[in-house]
């Protein structure tokens, strides 16, 4: 079965420090991958999505970036965090048609709670 992991679960960082959040998916190949941010008490905002290694699309211009160095690994980064980067970050995946499963359905990881002080 497929599982999705996010690391770390919780992070407290000072303003201006770098950021690296990791998302990995097991049990599937060549998934589509997504990064979302959820501010406190608000809905989900899509940040990035990826359809393959090295292929990243940005939905919202900001000081965050994403990379996909391996098929099942998706990384969210920042060189200098802002206070407004605080929030809950969720990674999600969808299967490819060739891998079976419902490629229209997104499955979410457990999330990372980021606090920028």
């Amino acid at each position, binding site marked *: 079965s497929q599982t999705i992991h996010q690391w770390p679960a919780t992070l407290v960082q000072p303003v201006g420090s770098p950021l690296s959040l990791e998302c990995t998916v097991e049990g599937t190949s060549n998934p*589509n991958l*997504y990064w979302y941010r*959820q501010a406190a008490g*608000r*809905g*989900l905002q*899509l940040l990035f*999505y990826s359809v393959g290694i090295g292929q990243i*699309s940005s*939905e919202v211009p900001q000081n965050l970036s994403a990379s996909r160095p391996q098929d099942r690994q998706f990384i969210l980064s920042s060189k200098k965090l802002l206070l407004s980067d605080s929030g*809950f970050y*969720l990674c*999600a995946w*969808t299967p490819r048609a060739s891998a079976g499963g*419902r*490629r*229209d*359905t*997104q*499955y*979410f*990881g*457990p*999330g990372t*709670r980021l606090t920028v002080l």
Partner: protein
Amino acid sequence: AQTVTQSQPEMSVQEAETVTLSCTYDTSESDYYLFWYKQPPSRQMILVIRQEAYKQQNATENRFSVNFQKAAKSFSLKISDSQLGDAAMYFCAYRSGRYGGSQGNLIFGKGTKLSVKP
């Protein structure tokens, strides 16, 4: 552009009773998917139920069922025999039936916070 609206910021239900959460959407597409996700206090997003727009039959998953009204662009979630563990934020989401590029992305409503009273 497609939009999803959840008009009930908060709802409350007595344990063992039934509650219905509302969702409306706007789209010009005829082929799409609709979802309800649950976000408990742990904040992980959990898929509750999925509906394919070309299917007239309403989806059901145990105590969860939907009332899908395609012409009215309405997609409500009914929770029967409510349990304390159902307390969570519930998000309605839309996905285009097309594939490729950003068309696989989900569009979420702002959510409904459901409380369950013992």
